[in-house]
């Protein structure tokens, strides 16, 4: 069976969920061969094998952390040349897209970004994308070269599918360009203890209606009662009330949870672009005309400072 390269996103050996979803999709079009790079890469093999990786190519070198993107491109290209895969899949993270973009130029292949689904087809993988702020769904394919595809989080279910995948060392020689952009320092983000925004089953977001950083605990309390991640509109982020990493929308994260709760968010097109594909959508807004109400399964017209705390209490008491 044709082999499919899967780029592994991990933090010090802990594989991130979108990579496991990629393995599910990769199995639809071939046999997954994972490429895992950087510190802790060797430790990713057991998890990857459990989810279907037939092989796990690993490389650990200081260059991967000390220089931006290009060392990883060199390594993926080495894997590409060693394996001759029928497709290369990446998570649609900032870095995943950049590695994919450069690889596509190097190997002269077409690239499709932000897939939300992937199926085998007669002329290669058929990619589903959600475009124009999720107003349209398109089907595309790569018509030249080996398809390079980046896939959004939550595009497939994580499935256990035990395979052989043991760590094998990948031989990489870095190009002259690998050291072009130095990472001078790196400040890790502090964990909030809440689920990751793009991976969470429930997301509770606050917007300008929250009125200030000091009020965001109202949103956080609801999130915590539901075990949810916290999101924010750009208006709330730009005002400095919440970190940019939590922004939902066109220039923030795309989320597609089972349940999305918007509090004090009007529902501008750029915000919708990041949450429109959520399964169930709920909103609390004091303006009955707010466009967010066009999207909701359930909406409450009212003051979020009344409605949200009451909901939080009710969730807590129902959960006991």
């Amino acid at each position, binding site marked *: 069976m044709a082999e499919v390269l899967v780029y592994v996103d991990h*933090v010090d050996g802990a594989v991130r969920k979108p990579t496991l979803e990629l393995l599910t999709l990769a199995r639809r079009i071939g046999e997954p061969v994972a490429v895992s790079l950087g510190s802790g890469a060797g430790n990713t093999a057991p998890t990857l094998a459990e989810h279907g990786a037939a092989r796990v190519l690993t490389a650990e070198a200081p260059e991967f952390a000390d220089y*931006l*993107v290009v060392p990883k491109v060199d390594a993926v290209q080495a894997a590409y040349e060693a394996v001759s895969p029928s497709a290369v899949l990446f998570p649609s993270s*900032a870095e995943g897209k*950049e590695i*994919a*973009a*450069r690889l596509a*130029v*190097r190997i002269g292949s*077409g*690239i499709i970004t932000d897939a939300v689904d992937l199926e085998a087809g007669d002329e290669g993988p*058929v990619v589903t994308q959600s*475009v*124009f702020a999720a107003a*349209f*769904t*398109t*089907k*595309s*394919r*790569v*018509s*030249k*070269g080996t398809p390079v595809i980046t896939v959004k989080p939550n595009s497939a279910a994580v499935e256990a599918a035990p395979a052989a995948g043991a760590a094998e060392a990948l031989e990489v020689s870095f190009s002259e360009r690998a050291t072009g*952009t*130095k*990472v*001078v*320092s*790196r400040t*890790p983000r502090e964990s909030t203890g809440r689920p990751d925004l793009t991976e969470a089953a429930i997301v509770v977001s606050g917007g300008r209606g929250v009125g200030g950083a000091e009020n965001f605990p109202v949103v956080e309390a609801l999130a915590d009662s*539901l075990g949810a991640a916290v999101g924010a509109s*750009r208006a709330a982020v730009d005002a400095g009330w919440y970190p*940019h*990493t939590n922004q939902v929308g*066109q*220039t923030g994260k795309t989320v597609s949870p089972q*349940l999305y709760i918007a509090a004090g968010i009007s529902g501008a*097109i750029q915000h919708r672009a990041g949450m429109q594909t959520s399964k169930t*959508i*709920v909103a609390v807004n004091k303006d*009955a005309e707010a466009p967010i*109400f066009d999207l909701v*399964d*359930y*909406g*409450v*017209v*009212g*003051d979020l400072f*009344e*409605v*949200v705390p*009451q*909901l939080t*209490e*009710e*969730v807590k008491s*129902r959960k006991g």
Partner: protein
Amino acid sequence: MSLRIVVCVKYVPDATGDRHFAEDLTVDRDDVDGLLSELDEYAVEQALQIADEADDAEITVLTVGPEDAKDALRKALSMGTDKAVHVEDDDLHGTDALGTSLVLAKAIEKTGYDLVICGMASTDGTMGVLPAMLSERLGVPQVSLLSEVSVEDGTVKGRRDGDTASEQLEARLPAVVSVTDQSGEARYPSFKGIMAAKKKPVQSWDLEDLEIESDEVGLEGAWTAVDGATERPARTAGTIVKDEGEGGKQLAAFLAERKFI
């Protein structure tokens, strides 16, 4: 020595308009008003700030796009950039990311550059791949997705805020940079700027000027193909209630019914 900055800007259909596809499944650019991609305004802004700090700098704005894309160049010129290059050719219709990066790279080389500045993504395609592709094609460092950027003594420095960490990056010029919408509000063109822009030079190049064969670009030359596009069905109307003191409880009942609690 003068610092030569090239800013890549894209002319895109207005996101608040009713965007759709043309019959050949390319983005319909006729029915919806176009404008300078808002995310590229941030690139123009950072170019202007970097030029202000430099002893001597010249900013060229560059676009690959149809006739109307001149509007985007005019806007960037009215913000204060110096000159513009418009790559326009009928054979470019339907060009994909790989093709666009080829055309942009050739045009950047022809213009001459020390620093290329891009936006984080175009607001229509939202791929966010061109800066990396340009860095690859031009063979110069990529310093991308910066929320803060500065240039000093031939070195570009910036802060890249990622999901798991925030990084300080550094590279020697020449380099390709991309900036995010966190890099600082873009200025509005002043009346004086708008008047001055009318006199600024806009050069037009076609594929021949860039020594690119027409089969390397366009719909035929594309490395990807769109086979179908369907409009997402409108969401079915939901229940909307007015809070009369029990709104939170009603919402809880709905969530319980859907098994979220």
